[in-house]
Protein backbone atom coordinates (compact mmCIF):
# COMPACT_ATOMS: atom_id res chain seq x y z
CA UNK A 1 0.00 0.00 0.00
CA UNK A 2 1.45 3.35 -1.06
CA UNK A 3 1.18 6.47 1.05
CA UNK A 4 0.66 9.82 -0.67
CA UNK A 5 0.73 13.06 1.28
CA UNK A 6 -0.47 16.34 -0.25
CA UNK A 7 0.39 19.62 1.43
CA UNK A 8 -2.30 22.19 0.68
CA UNK A 9 -5.85 22.02 -0.65
CA UNK A 10 -6.01 24.99 -2.98
CA UNK A 11 -6.64 24.56 -6.71
CA UNK A 12 -3.53 22.44 -7.25
CA UNK A 13 -3.56 20.35 -4.07
CA UNK A 14 -7.31 19.78 -4.04
CA UNK A 15 -7.38 18.80 -7.73
CA UNK A 16 -4.53 16.36 -7.05
CA UNK A 17 -6.42 15.00 -4.02
CA UNK A 18 -9.57 14.39 -6.11
CA UNK A 19 -7.67 12.47 -8.80
CA UNK A 20 -5.55 10.52 -6.33
CA UNK A 21 -8.46 9.74 -4.03
CA UNK A 22 -10.76 8.61 -6.82
CA UNK A 23 -8.09 6.37 -8.40
CA UNK A 24 -6.12 5.15 -5.39
CA UNK A 25 -8.11 5.99 -2.30
CA UNK A 26 -9.60 2.57 -1.62
CA UNK A 27 -6.36 0.60 -1.87
CA UNK A 28 -3.78 3.18 -0.87
CA UNK A 29 -3.51 5.97 1.68
CA UNK A 30 -3.99 9.55 0.49
CA UNK A 31 -3.66 12.31 3.11
CA UNK A 32 -4.15 16.04 2.67
CA UNK A 33 -2.73 18.56 5.13
CA UNK A 34 -4.49 21.93 4.90
CA UNK A 35 -4.66 24.97 7.16
CA UNK A 36 -8.44 25.19 6.84
CA UNK A 37 -11.16 22.54 6.80
CA UNK A 38 -12.75 24.23 3.78
CA UNK A 39 -11.92 24.87 0.15
CA UNK A 40 -12.03 28.51 -0.96
CA UNK A 41 -12.90 29.39 -4.54
CA UNK A 42 -10.39 32.22 -4.95
CA UNK A 43 -11.64 33.64 -8.32
CA UNK A 44 -14.91 34.76 -6.72
CA UNK A 45 -13.26 36.65 -3.86
CA UNK A 46 -13.19 39.80 -6.03
CA UNK A 47 -16.99 39.77 -5.56
CA UNK A 48 -16.69 39.12 -1.83
CA UNK A 49 -14.37 42.15 -1.63
CA UNK A 50 -17.07 44.52 -2.90
CA UNK A 51 -19.88 42.90 -0.91
CA UNK A 52 -21.57 41.32 -3.93
CA UNK A 53 -21.14 37.71 -2.84
CA UNK A 54 -21.47 36.17 0.62
CA UNK A 55 -18.17 34.56 1.72
CA UNK A 56 -19.88 31.20 2.39
CA UNK A 57 -20.93 30.99 -1.28
CA UNK A 58 -17.26 30.64 -2.19
CA UNK A 59 -16.44 27.76 0.13
CA UNK A 60 -17.36 24.18 0.91
CA UNK A 61 -16.25 21.78 3.64
CA UNK A 62 -13.48 19.43 2.56
CA UNK A 63 -14.20 16.52 4.89
CA UNK A 64 -17.44 15.25 3.29
CA UNK A 65 -15.77 15.40 -0.16
CA UNK A 66 -12.67 13.59 1.06
CA UNK A 67 -14.73 10.97 2.90
CA UNK A 68 -16.38 10.08 -0.42
CA UNK A 69 -13.00 10.05 -2.18
CA UNK A 70 -11.27 7.99 0.53
CA UNK A 71 -8.89 10.83 1.36
CA UNK A 72 -7.82 11.62 4.91
CA UNK A 73 -7.77 15.29 5.96
CA UNK A 74 -5.42 16.71 8.57
CA UNK A 75 -6.30 20.31 9.45
CA UNK A 76 -3.05 22.05 10.26
CA UNK A 77 0.19 23.09 8.62
CA UNK A 78 3.30 21.19 7.62
CA UNK A 79 6.36 22.38 9.47
CA UNK A 80 9.06 19.88 8.48
CA UNK A 81 9.83 17.69 5.49
CA UNK A 82 12.29 14.80 5.94
CA UNK A 83 13.00 13.69 2.37
CA UNK A 84 15.90 11.23 2.73
CA UNK A 85 15.30 7.71 1.43
CA UNK A 86 14.45 5.17 4.11
CA UNK A 87 12.81 7.59 6.48
CA UNK A 88 10.59 9.97 4.52
CA UNK A 89 7.99 11.86 6.46
CA UNK A 90 6.32 15.18 7.09
CA UNK A 91 5.72 16.77 10.47
CA UNK A 92 2.47 18.68 10.63
CA UNK A 93 1.13 20.85 13.40
CA UNK A 94 -2.58 20.35 13.91
CA UNK A 95 -5.02 23.10 14.89
CA UNK A 96 -4.65 22.55 18.63
CA UNK A 97 -0.85 22.58 18.50
CA UNK A 98 -0.49 18.79 18.50
CA UNK A 99 2.12 17.51 16.05
CA UNK A 100 1.62 14.51 13.82
CA UNK A 101 4.10 12.48 11.75
CA UNK A 102 2.95 11.50 8.26
CA UNK A 103 5.09 8.94 6.43
CA UNK A 104 4.98 9.11 2.66
CA UNK A 105 6.03 7.30 -0.46
CA UNK A 106 5.03 10.27 -2.61
CA UNK A 107 4.75 13.89 -1.51
CA UNK A 108 2.95 16.70 -3.35
CA UNK A 109 3.83 20.20 -2.17
CA UNK A 110 0.92 22.44 -3.13
CA UNK A 111 0.98 24.87 -0.25
CA UNK A 112 0.39 27.97 -2.33
CA UNK A 113 2.38 31.05 -1.36
CA UNK A 114 3.37 32.79 1.79
CA UNK A 115 1.96 36.32 1.43
CA UNK A 116 5.11 38.29 2.09
CA UNK A 117 3.61 41.52 3.41
CA UNK A 118 6.81 42.03 5.42
CA UNK A 119 8.66 42.48 2.10
CA UNK A 120 7.10 45.95 1.84
CA UNK A 121 6.97 47.95 5.09
CA UNK A 122 3.43 49.15 5.85
CA UNK A 123 1.80 46.72 3.42
CA UNK A 124 -1.08 44.46 4.24
CA UNK A 125 -3.95 44.05 6.63
CA UNK A 126 -3.07 43.54 10.27
CA UNK A 127 0.30 45.17 10.71
CA UNK A 128 0.04 47.45 7.66
CA UNK A 129 -2.31 49.98 6.14
CA UNK A 130 -3.44 48.34 2.90
CA UNK A 131 -5.85 45.51 2.16
CA UNK A 132 -5.65 42.24 0.25
CA UNK A 133 -8.08 39.80 -1.35
CA UNK A 134 -5.60 36.90 -1.33
CA UNK A 135 -7.36 34.91 1.43
CA UNK A 136 -11.02 34.78 2.38
CA UNK A 137 -10.51 36.58 5.73
CA UNK A 138 -8.55 39.25 3.84
CA UNK A 139 -11.33 39.64 1.25
CA UNK A 140 -13.87 40.07 4.06
CA UNK A 141 -11.66 42.72 5.71
CA UNK A 142 -11.27 44.49 2.33
CA UNK A 143 -15.05 44.39 1.86
CA UNK A 144 -15.67 45.94 5.29
CA UNK A 145 -13.20 48.73 4.62
CA UNK A 146 -14.56 49.29 1.11
CA UNK A 147 -18.12 49.57 2.45
CA UNK A 148 -16.85 52.18 4.96
CA UNK A 149 -15.39 54.06 2.00
CA UNK A 150 -18.78 53.86 0.26
CA UNK A 151 -20.45 55.38 3.34
CA UNK A 152 -17.94 58.23 3.37
CA UNK A 153 -18.54 58.85 -0.32
CA UNK A 154 -22.28 58.96 0.38
CA UNK A 155 -21.60 61.70 2.92
CA UNK A 156 -20.02 63.74 0.14
CA UNK A 157 -16.30 63.07 0.75
CA UNK A 158 -13.97 62.72 -2.22
CA UNK A 159 -11.66 59.72 -1.83
CA UNK A 160 -8.75 58.08 -3.61
CA UNK A 161 -8.80 54.36 -4.24
CA UNK A 162 -5.60 52.62 -5.35
CA UNK A 163 -5.54 48.99 -6.48
CA UNK A 164 -2.62 46.95 -7.80
CA UNK A 165 0.60 45.35 -6.63
CA UNK A 166 2.55 46.17 -3.48
CA UNK A 167 6.00 44.89 -4.44
CA UNK A 168 8.32 44.97 -7.45
CA UNK A 169 8.19 41.17 -7.68
CA UNK A 170 4.45 40.65 -7.17
CA UNK A 171 2.21 38.51 -9.36
CA UNK A 172 -1.59 38.01 -9.74
CA UNK A 173 -2.19 41.36 -11.42
CA UNK A 174 -5.34 39.87 -12.98
CA UNK A 175 -7.07 39.57 -9.60
CA UNK A 176 -6.21 43.19 -8.81
CA UNK A 177 -7.56 44.31 -12.19
CA UNK A 178 -10.83 42.47 -11.55
CA UNK A 179 -11.19 44.03 -8.12
CA UNK A 180 -10.54 47.52 -9.51
CA UNK A 181 -13.16 47.22 -12.26
CA UNK A 182 -15.71 45.67 -9.88
CA UNK A 183 -15.22 48.66 -7.57
CA UNK A 184 -15.70 51.00 -10.54
CA UNK A 185 -18.93 49.24 -11.57
CA UNK A 186 -20.22 49.17 -7.99
CA UNK A 187 -19.59 52.89 -7.51
CA UNK A 188 -21.26 53.69 -10.84
CA UNK A 189 -24.36 51.75 -9.75
CA UNK A 190 -24.41 53.55 -6.41
CA UNK A 191 -24.08 56.94 -8.14
CA UNK A 192 -20.81 57.65 -6.32
CA UNK A 193 -18.22 57.17 -9.03
CA UNK A 194 -17.52 60.86 -9.63
CA UNK A 195 -16.57 61.28 -5.97
CA UNK A 196 -13.84 58.62 -6.10
CA UNK A 197 -10.62 58.64 -8.08
CA UNK A 198 -9.47 55.17 -9.11
CA UNK A 199 -5.82 54.35 -9.83
CA UNK A 200 -4.14 51.16 -11.06
CA UNK A 201 -0.63 50.90 -9.57
CA UNK A 202 1.36 47.95 -10.84
CA UNK A 203 4.78 46.39 -11.37
CA UNK A 204 3.85 45.24 -14.89
CA UNK A 205 6.21 46.37 -17.66
CA UNK A 206 3.13 47.64 -19.53
CA UNK A 207 -0.62 47.87 -19.03
CA UNK A 208 -2.36 44.56 -19.75
CA UNK A 209 0.82 42.52 -19.22
CA UNK A 210 -0.72 40.46 -16.36
CA UNK A 211 2.59 38.68 -15.77
CA UNK A 212 2.31 36.71 -19.02
CA UNK A 213 4.07 39.23 -21.23
CA UNK A 214 0.75 40.62 -22.47
CA UNK A 215 -1.43 39.09 -25.14
CA UNK A 216 -1.69 39.84 -28.85
CA UNK A 217 -4.72 38.83 -30.83
CA UNK A 218 -5.90 39.26 -34.39
CA UNK A 219 -9.05 41.37 -34.54
CA UNK A 220 -10.64 42.73 -37.70
CA UNK A 221 -7.52 42.04 -39.72
CA UNK A 222 -5.03 43.72 -37.39
CA UNK A 223 -3.08 42.92 -34.26
CA UNK A 224 -4.53 44.24 -31.03
CA UNK A 225 -2.48 44.03 -27.83
CA UNK A 226 -3.85 43.60 -24.33
CA UNK A 227 -2.05 46.89 -23.57
CA UNK A 228 -4.22 48.78 -26.09
CA UNK A 229 -7.29 46.88 -24.94
CA UNK A 230 -6.85 47.60 -21.21
CA UNK A 231 -5.88 51.21 -21.93
CA UNK A 232 -9.13 51.63 -23.88
CA UNK A 233 -11.07 50.20 -20.90
CA UNK A 234 -9.30 52.49 -18.39
CA UNK A 235 -9.88 55.53 -20.59
CA UNK A 236 -13.53 54.59 -21.03
CA UNK A 237 -13.99 54.19 -17.26
CA UNK A 238 -11.86 57.19 -16.22
CA UNK A 239 -9.27 55.08 -14.36
CA UNK A 240 -5.72 56.43 -13.99
CA UNK A 241 -2.76 54.07 -14.19
CA UNK A 242 0.85 53.95 -13.05
CA UNK A 243 2.80 50.91 -14.22
CA UNK A 244 6.47 49.86 -13.90
CA UNK A 245 6.32 50.74 -10.21
CA UNK A 246 7.98 48.85 -7.37
CA UNK A 247 6.22 49.83 -4.15
CA UNK A 248 8.89 50.46 -1.48
CA UNK A 249 6.78 51.24 1.57
CA UNK A 250 3.37 52.43 2.61
CA UNK A 251 2.23 54.70 5.40
CA UNK A 252 -1.24 55.66 6.55
CA UNK A 253 -1.89 57.99 3.62
CA UNK A 254 0.81 57.50 0.98
CA UNK A 255 2.26 54.68 -1.13
CA UNK A 256 5.97 55.26 -1.89
CA UNK A 257 7.38 53.67 -5.03
CA UNK A 258 10.33 53.58 -7.38
CA UNK A 259 9.83 53.56 -11.14
CA UNK A 260 11.85 51.81 -13.85
CA UNK A 261 14.18 54.82 -14.24
CA UNK A 262 15.01 54.72 -10.53
CA UNK A 263 12.95 57.81 -9.72
CA UNK A 264 11.06 57.80 -6.43
CA UNK A 265 7.47 58.97 -6.24
CA UNK A 266 4.34 58.88 -4.13
CA UNK A 267 0.70 57.98 -4.64
CA UNK A 268 -1.67 59.23 -1.93
CA UNK A 269 -4.65 57.03 -1.10
CA UNK A 270 -7.63 56.59 1.20
CA UNK A 271 -8.26 52.91 0.43
CA UNK A 272 -5.71 50.59 -1.18
CA UNK A 273 -5.74 46.91 -2.06
CA UNK A 274 -2.24 45.87 -3.06
CA UNK A 275 -1.19 42.27 -3.83
CA UNK A 276 2.01 41.40 -1.91
CA UNK A 277 5.07 39.52 -3.11
CA UNK A 278 4.62 35.75 -2.96
CA UNK A 279 7.33 33.53 -1.49
CA UNK A 280 7.43 29.83 -0.68
CA UNK A 281 5.73 28.71 2.52
CA UNK A 282 8.53 28.41 5.11
CA UNK A 283 9.22 24.87 6.30
CA UNK A 284 12.24 22.98 7.59
CA UNK A 285 13.81 20.56 5.12
CA UNK A 286 15.90 18.14 7.13
CA UNK A 287 18.16 15.29 6.07
CA UNK A 288 18.70 11.99 7.88
CA UNK A 289 21.15 13.49 10.35
CA UNK A 290 19.12 16.62 10.94
CA UNK A 291 21.10 18.67 8.41
CA UNK A 292 19.41 21.39 6.36
CA UNK A 293 18.72 20.12 2.82
CA UNK A 294 16.62 23.11 1.70
CA UNK A 295 19.10 23.92 -1.11
CA UNK A 296 18.23 20.59 -2.79
CA UNK A 297 14.53 21.26 -2.62
CA UNK A 298 13.88 24.98 -2.92
CA UNK A 299 15.10 28.12 -4.64
CA UNK A 300 16.03 31.28 -2.75
CA UNK A 301 12.40 32.40 -2.61
CA UNK A 302 11.39 29.10 -1.01
CA UNK A 303 9.58 27.61 -4.03
CA UNK A 304 10.12 23.91 -4.79
CA UNK A 305 12.65 23.14 -7.53
CA UNK A 306 11.29 20.83 -10.20
CA UNK A 307 12.42 19.41 -13.55
CA UNK A 308 12.87 22.86 -15.15
CA UNK A 309 16.16 24.37 -16.25
CA UNK A 310 17.03 27.05 -13.74
CA UNK A 311 19.46 29.93 -13.94
CA UNK A 312 19.11 30.80 -17.63
CA UNK A 313 19.29 34.51 -18.43
CA UNK A 314 15.94 35.86 -19.64
CA UNK A 315 17.12 36.14 -23.26
CA UNK A 316 18.01 32.41 -23.21
CA UNK A 317 14.89 31.40 -21.32
CA UNK A 318 12.55 32.84 -23.97
CA UNK A 319 14.31 30.68 -26.57
CA UNK A 320 14.17 27.53 -24.44
CA UNK A 321 10.59 26.27 -24.04
CA UNK A 322 11.89 23.04 -22.48
CA UNK A 323 13.26 25.06 -19.57
CA UNK A 324 9.73 24.96 -18.15
CA UNK A 325 9.06 21.82 -16.09
CA UNK A 326 7.02 19.00 -17.65
CA UNK A 327 6.25 16.68 -14.72
CA UNK A 328 6.93 18.99 -11.73
CA UNK A 329 9.22 16.47 -10.05
CA UNK A 330 12.09 17.48 -7.78
CA UNK A 331 15.40 16.33 -9.31
CA UNK A 332 17.06 15.50 -5.98
CA UNK A 333 14.09 13.70 -4.47
CA UNK A 334 12.10 12.10 -7.33
CA UNK A 335 9.16 11.17 -5.11
CA UNK A 336 8.54 14.85 -4.27
CA UNK A 337 6.39 16.87 -6.66
CA UNK A 338 5.26 20.48 -6.57
CA UNK A 339 2.05 21.94 -7.99
CA UNK A 340 0.55 25.39 -8.36
CA UNK A 341 2.28 28.43 -6.92
CA UNK A 342 4.56 26.19 -4.81
CA UNK A 343 6.66 25.14 -7.82
CA UNK A 344 9.61 27.33 -8.75
CA UNK A 345 9.26 28.71 -12.28
CA UNK A 346 12.54 28.87 -14.20
CA UNK A 347 12.06 32.63 -14.60
CA UNK A 348 9.53 35.30 -15.44
CA UNK A 349 7.35 35.33 -18.57
CA UNK A 350 7.25 39.14 -18.66
CA UNK A 351 10.36 41.14 -19.44
CA UNK A 352 12.25 41.71 -16.16
CA UNK A 353 13.84 45.03 -15.32
CA UNK A 354 16.37 46.28 -12.79
CA UNK A 355 16.32 49.98 -11.96
CA UNK A 356 19.55 52.03 -11.81
CA UNK A 357 19.26 51.69 -8.02
CA UNK A 358 19.30 47.90 -8.30
CA UNK A 359 15.60 47.31 -7.57
CA UNK A 360 14.10 44.42 -9.53
CA UNK A 361 10.74 45.15 -11.15
CA UNK A 362 9.59 41.76 -12.34
CA UNK A 363 6.00 40.65 -12.77
CA UNK A 364 6.43 37.05 -11.61
CA UNK A 365 4.90 34.22 -13.65
CA UNK A 366 1.32 33.49 -12.52
CA UNK A 367 0.65 29.84 -11.57
CA UNK A 368 -2.88 30.22 -10.26
CA UNK A 369 -6.36 29.07 -11.31
CA UNK A 370 -6.45 26.92 -14.42
CA UNK A 371 -2.64 26.51 -14.50
CA UNK A 372 -2.66 25.27 -10.88
CA UNK A 373 -5.48 22.83 -11.56
CA UNK A 374 -3.79 21.40 -14.64
CA UNK A 375 -0.49 20.92 -12.82
CA UNK A 376 -2.34 19.27 -9.90
CA UNK A 377 -3.94 16.82 -12.35
CA UNK A 378 -0.66 16.04 -14.16
CA UNK A 379 1.15 15.41 -10.86
CA UNK A 380 -1.67 13.22 -9.52
CA UNK A 381 -1.94 11.12 -12.65
CA UNK A 382 1.83 10.61 -12.73
CA UNK A 383 1.82 9.42 -9.12
CA UNK A 384 -0.97 6.98 -10.04
CA UNK A 385 1.21 5.86 -12.97
CA UNK A 386 4.25 5.37 -10.77
CA UNK A 387 2.30 3.32 -8.26
CA UNK A 388 0.49 1.21 -10.89
CA UNK A 389 3.04 0.95 -13.71
CA UNK A 390 6.32 2.28 -12.39
CA UNK A 391 6.65 5.05 -14.99
CA UNK A 392 5.08 8.45 -15.68
CA UNK A 393 3.01 9.04 -18.83
CA UNK A 394 1.70 12.58 -18.28
CA UNK A 395 3.40 15.90 -18.89
CA UNK A 396 2.35 19.46 -19.55
CA UNK A 397 4.80 22.33 -19.62
CA UNK A 398 3.46 25.88 -19.32
CA UNK A 399 4.86 26.28 -22.84
CA UNK A 400 2.36 23.58 -23.92
CA UNK A 401 -0.56 24.61 -21.75
CA UNK A 402 -3.78 26.40 -22.65
CA UNK A 403 -5.35 28.71 -20.10
CA UNK A 404 -8.45 30.83 -20.10
CA UNK A 405 -8.68 33.86 -17.85
CA UNK A 406 -12.07 35.45 -17.31
CA UNK A 407 -11.61 38.82 -15.65
CA UNK A 408 -14.82 40.01 -14.06
CA UNK A 409 -15.86 43.59 -14.78
CA UNK A 410 -19.11 43.62 -12.82
CA UNK A 411 -20.96 40.55 -11.64
CA UNK A 412 -24.48 41.43 -12.74
CA UNK A 413 -25.98 38.93 -15.19
CA UNK A 414 -28.05 41.76 -16.67
CA UNK A 415 -25.49 44.51 -17.26
CA UNK A 416 -22.18 43.10 -15.99
CA UNK A 417 -19.20 42.28 -18.19
CA UNK A 418 -15.91 40.40 -18.25
CA UNK A 419 -12.86 40.20 -20.43
CA UNK A 420 -12.29 36.65 -21.65
CA UNK A 421 -8.62 36.04 -22.45
CA UNK A 422 -7.59 32.69 -23.91
CA UNK A 423 -3.86 32.08 -24.20
CA UNK A 424 -2.14 29.17 -25.84
CA UNK A 425 0.46 28.48 -24.74
CA UNK A 426 0.60 30.29 -21.41
CA UNK A 427 4.35 30.80 -21.82
CA UNK A 428 5.19 31.87 -25.39
CA UNK A 429 7.04 29.24 -27.40
CA UNK A 430 8.81 30.97 -30.26
CA UNK A 431 10.15 27.71 -31.64
CA UNK A 432 6.67 26.26 -32.26
CA UNK A 433 5.01 29.60 -33.05
CA UNK A 434 7.65 31.65 -34.85
CA UNK A 435 5.51 34.81 -34.92
CA UNK A 436 6.19 37.90 -32.83
CA UNK A 437 3.97 36.71 -30.01
CA UNK A 438 5.16 33.09 -29.64
CA UNK A 439 1.55 31.97 -29.34
CA UNK A 440 -1.04 30.22 -31.51
CA UNK A 441 -2.98 33.11 -33.04
CA UNK A 442 -5.85 30.80 -33.95
CA UNK A 443 -6.52 30.08 -30.28
CA UNK A 444 -5.19 33.10 -28.38
CA UNK A 445 -8.17 35.36 -28.09
CA UNK A 446 -9.60 38.32 -26.20
CA UNK A 447 -13.16 39.64 -25.97
CA UNK A 448 -15.17 41.84 -23.63
CA UNK A 449 -18.90 41.86 -23.03
CA UNK A 450 -21.86 40.67 -21.01
CA UNK A 451 -21.28 37.10 -22.20
CA UNK A 452 -18.04 37.18 -20.15
CA UNK A 453 -20.06 37.89 -16.99
CA UNK A 454 -22.21 34.86 -17.79
CA UNK A 455 -19.06 32.80 -18.37
CA UNK A 456 -17.60 33.91 -15.04
CA UNK A 457 -20.80 32.97 -13.17
CA UNK A 458 -21.01 29.66 -15.04
CA UNK A 459 -17.42 28.90 -14.05
CA UNK A 460 -18.19 29.65 -10.41
CA UNK A 461 -21.12 27.22 -10.44
CA UNK A 462 -19.48 24.45 -12.50
CA UNK A 463 -16.23 24.59 -10.54
CA UNK A 464 -17.99 24.48 -7.19
CA UNK A 465 -19.67 21.34 -8.58
CA UNK A 466 -16.48 19.85 -10.01
CA UNK A 467 -14.33 20.54 -6.97
CA UNK A 468 -16.81 18.78 -4.72
CA UNK A 469 -16.23 15.68 -6.82
CA UNK A 470 -19.86 15.50 -7.91
CA UNK A 471 -20.99 13.32 -10.84
CA UNK A 472 -19.17 14.19 -14.06
CA UNK A 473 -16.45 16.24 -12.30
CA UNK A 474 -13.66 14.87 -14.49
CA UNK A 475 -15.41 16.05 -17.69
CA UNK A 476 -15.16 19.71 -16.65
CA UNK A 477 -11.70 20.96 -17.67
CA UNK A 478 -9.50 22.43 -14.94
Amino acid at each position, binding site marked *: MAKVVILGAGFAGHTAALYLGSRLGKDHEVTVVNRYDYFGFVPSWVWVGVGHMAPEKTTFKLRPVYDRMHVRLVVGKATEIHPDVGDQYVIAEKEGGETVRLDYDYLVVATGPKLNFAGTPGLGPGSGYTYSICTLPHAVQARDKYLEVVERLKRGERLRIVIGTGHGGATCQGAGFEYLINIHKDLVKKGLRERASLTWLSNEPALGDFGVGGVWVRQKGRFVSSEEFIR*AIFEEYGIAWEVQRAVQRVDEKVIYWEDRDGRYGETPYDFAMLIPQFTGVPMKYLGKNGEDVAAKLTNKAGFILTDGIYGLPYEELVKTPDAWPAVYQNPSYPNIFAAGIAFAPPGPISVPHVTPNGTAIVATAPRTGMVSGIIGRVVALNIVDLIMRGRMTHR*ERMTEMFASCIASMGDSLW*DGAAVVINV*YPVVPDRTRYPNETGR*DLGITYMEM*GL*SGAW*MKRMIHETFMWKLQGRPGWTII*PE
Partner: protein
Amino acid sequence: MRFTRREKFLMKFHPYQLWRFIVLNLKILKAVDHSKRS
Protein backbone atom coordinates in the same frame (compact mmCIF):
# COMPACT_ATOMS: atom_id res chain seq x y z
CA MET B 1 -7.65 51.90 -29.73
CA ARG B 2 -11.09 53.10 -28.71
CA PHE B 3 -14.32 51.21 -28.41
CA THR B 4 -16.75 52.39 -31.06
CA ARG B 5 -20.38 53.17 -30.28
CA ARG B 6 -21.36 50.00 -32.16
CA GLU B 7 -18.93 47.85 -30.13
CA LYS B 8 -20.21 49.33 -26.87
CA PHE B 9 -23.79 48.61 -27.93
CA LEU B 10 -22.99 45.03 -28.89
CA MET B 11 -21.17 44.40 -25.59
CA LYS B 12 -24.51 44.90 -23.81
CA PHE B 13 -26.94 43.64 -26.47
CA HIS B 14 -28.35 40.44 -24.99
CA PRO B 15 -29.18 38.44 -28.17
CA TYR B 16 -25.70 39.14 -29.57
CA GLN B 17 -24.10 38.30 -26.23
CA LEU B 18 -25.99 34.99 -26.11
CA TRP B 19 -24.37 34.16 -29.44
CA ARG B 20 -20.95 35.21 -28.11
CA PHE B 21 -21.51 33.08 -24.97
CA ILE B 22 -22.00 30.01 -27.16
CA VAL B 23 -19.00 30.91 -29.32
CA LEU B 24 -16.76 31.54 -26.28
CA ASN B 25 -17.66 28.18 -24.78
CA LEU B 26 -16.89 26.43 -28.05
CA LYS B 27 -13.59 28.30 -28.36
CA ILE B 28 -12.54 27.21 -24.87
CA LEU B 29 -13.58 23.59 -25.42
CA LYS B 30 -11.71 23.53 -28.74
CA ALA B 31 -8.60 25.02 -27.13
CA VAL B 32 -8.69 22.60 -24.19
CA ASP B 33 -8.94 19.75 -26.68
CA HIS B 34 -6.11 21.21 -28.77
CA SER B 35 -3.92 21.68 -25.69
CA LYS B 36 -2.00 18.62 -24.55
CA ARG B 37 -4.34 17.58 -21.69
CA SER B 38 -2.14 14.51 -21.39
